[in-house]
């Protein structure tokens, strides 16, 4: 069997893999709220008690 068939198979399997990942992500609602996660990921540092540093979040323009 020619190598071209193997390459085609691999490329299609990889493509379908990404396609399925995309569908699953949409189905789980990952694209429904694109703003909150961007804020949430910055909180982890604040949870450490004692005098948390003021981050860029204190800016007024963080308001939606």
């Amino acid at each position, binding site marked *: 069997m*020619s190598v*071209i*068939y193997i390459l*085609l198979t691999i*490329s*299609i399997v990889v*493509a379908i893999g990404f*396609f399925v990942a*995309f*569908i699953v992500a*949409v*189905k789980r*609602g990952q*694209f*429904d*709220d*694109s*703003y*909150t996660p961007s*804020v*949430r990921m*910055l*909180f982890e540092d*604040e*949870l450490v*008690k004692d005098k*948390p540093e*003021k*981050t860029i*979040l*204190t800016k007024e323009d*963080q*308001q*939606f």
Partner: protein
Amino acid sequence: MEHKTCFHCGLDSTTSEIIYDDKSFCCNGCKTVYEIFSANDLTCYYDLQNAPGTTPKEIEGKYNFLDNPKIVERLLEFNDEKTQIVTLYIPHIHCSSCIWILENLNKLHPSVSSSIVNFGKKTVRVNYNTEHFSLKGLVKLLSSIGYEPFISLDDYSVGKKNVDRSLIYKLGVASFAFGNIMFLSFPEYFQVSGFWIEKYAPVFRWLMFVFSLPVVFYSAQDYFISAYKGIRSKILNIDVPIALGAAVLFIRSTAEIVFNIGTGFFDSLSGLIFFLLLGKFFQQKTYTFLSFERDYKSYFPIGITKILSDNSETSIQVYDIEKGDRLLIRNEELIPVDCILIKGKARIDYSFVTGESEAVSKQSGDKLFAGGKQLNGSIEVDALKTVEQSYLTQLWSNDVFSKNKEDGFTTLTNAISKRFTIAVLSIAIVATSYWLFSDASKALNVFTSVLIIACPCAIALAAPFTFGNLLRIFGKLKFYAKNASVIEQLAAVDTIIFDKTGTITANKETSIEYNGLELSEDEEALLKSTLRNSNHPLSRSLYSLLNDNDIVTLDTYEEHVGKGIEAQHNQDSIKIGSAPFVGYTSETATLNTAVHVSTNNKYKGSFTFYNKYRKGLSKLFNKLKKEYDLVILSGDNAGEKENLTKLLPAKTKLFFNQKPEDKLEYIKHHQNSGAKVLMIGDGLNDAGALAQSNVGIAISENVNVFSPACDAILDATKFNQLYHFIKASKSAIKIIKWSFLLSLIYNCIGLYFAVTGQLAPVIAAILMPLSSISIVVFTTICTNIIAPPSLSIGEEYSDE
């Protein structure tokens, strides 16, 4: 004294003298919230944003309806023996502190296992254990920290709404297939013959065929369905030539690979569908924090307190209210049904329903209408009708609310597609018949080529991208349109109808004029001190508008409900209130609200309240009058008539005392005589008119709170720019017409290849994306040029 602001909510706290933990607070409510947070190690809340909070409101008894398991069941998203999940809408969510505190609810109550905020929708989804906790407990907890959820009749069907994501799936499938088919087409783009191609071409071709199947039968199905519907109702809409082109592309390509004639046009086919879906996707701009579909349900409460015959109270659901039920309406609650007042002093704010700005007092035995808001303590009423049969809610049974406005409106694209389709079909037939005589073997090839190359991809993209882009620009300028068709309809408008209260007048601002004898300094101080004690809305607004005076301590103070207030300080007495109360008998007939004052039983004069009109109103009207018929339909009385005639252009028509149905009928009447009506309103009383008009715009002081069902929401501060929005919509139509011309040029080039029988797949694969992309670029650049300038106009009006 040093100026201080509340650490929790940021309001002025100079006079409150509440200090806790070295921080000053404006009221005990704010202090309590701070105490809760500091006791639970949650003061990070204040690090993320300065003064992010709000004062918790008194909610005593307000959420008793959450004891009713039937109501709770309908609100929950998930419910089993131990866990419940609920999504609550919290209007106060506005900053990162809000997200942080709401996602740390589990620290405030151990029964909460997790909570997730959706900032755009202003909702929080809470997962909690029901062993020691309930929904009512959760709502009380949220309210106690200033995040009171808003629960309305609209939530009654929660959990049954499914998000429609089919367009994203279709777009995903199309882009996936498009990319892969492009890769597979590459070998044959560059090599037309040779050993390698001859050996492997069938594999590549059949793979392309397989990839194109989901594109044709899934992604493109809407176009086929729409074209079929169009032909059935004898309309050649834009989807007819698209569906025709896609079908011919697929059939001819399949035939080519079956008979091993060529590689087919699968690349162009999937590219075409991909670009079309992209246009559709771009055209959809959704504002998650806005709703354009609100009806009375969004305003009405879910539950109400019913008083049983043995005087005990129980919570029932508003749909269960029956004629004759005795109901308890608390302060600030909405009256859900038409009823008769039995007990208590009613002061009803009907501004939702009628647009009247002043609250009205009612005596027991008076009839109250649904939609009014009680402002003065609790009252007891007897229901006269059920919810659906009440005066206000009946408006929604009018069939304008079930009609879809987009039906019956011929879009520019569909208007041109009729001629386009006929032209393409005749070219195809003429070219085919020519080839039938000169070289019959090429005839079928030419016929299909013409249909393929003439597929109006670029035409179909012009409108979605122009309107989609303008929609986004408008959104940035705080004019939120529901969809692209609203902009197209806005451009066609020739009559503009305004509501008065809340639309051309500002809701919160009133101006006050004093007529009468001048008040001495002592008298002014006494007046101000007396007003300070009163909670009547007129007293409050008069108090805030008077100059600062020393506050004197009153010896006596008495409030006569429905009449006025009376006070004494040293030797001086003062009476403030209605004309008869202060002893003023020669009352001249005035329709405006007035407060009369007398001191030591001597009549002094009156303060008259006037509506304050929005900034730039007369400038806006003067700009609009050249091109549009202007009308004002007000639910209020004619008190402002003289004022308005002075302010507005002479040909503006003014109508007062208009009921909601009157407004609707007025618009209907004018539409029947050919007018295209733009209605601008704000309250529920305009809901019928907004639905009936061609374009209904709701004005909103705060876009996060409620506005009735409409086509677009305009932020009140941008009211004076209305003219520029309409003008931009008109320019958008021009852009689309130019785009049509541009895409016709591409079509002519393509048709040359097609009718001469030399359309190779690679030409189609280049020409189609090229035309689509250049249309996208052209419309994007043009819409940015015509967009209303945001800064320069602001400056133009700011000096007023």
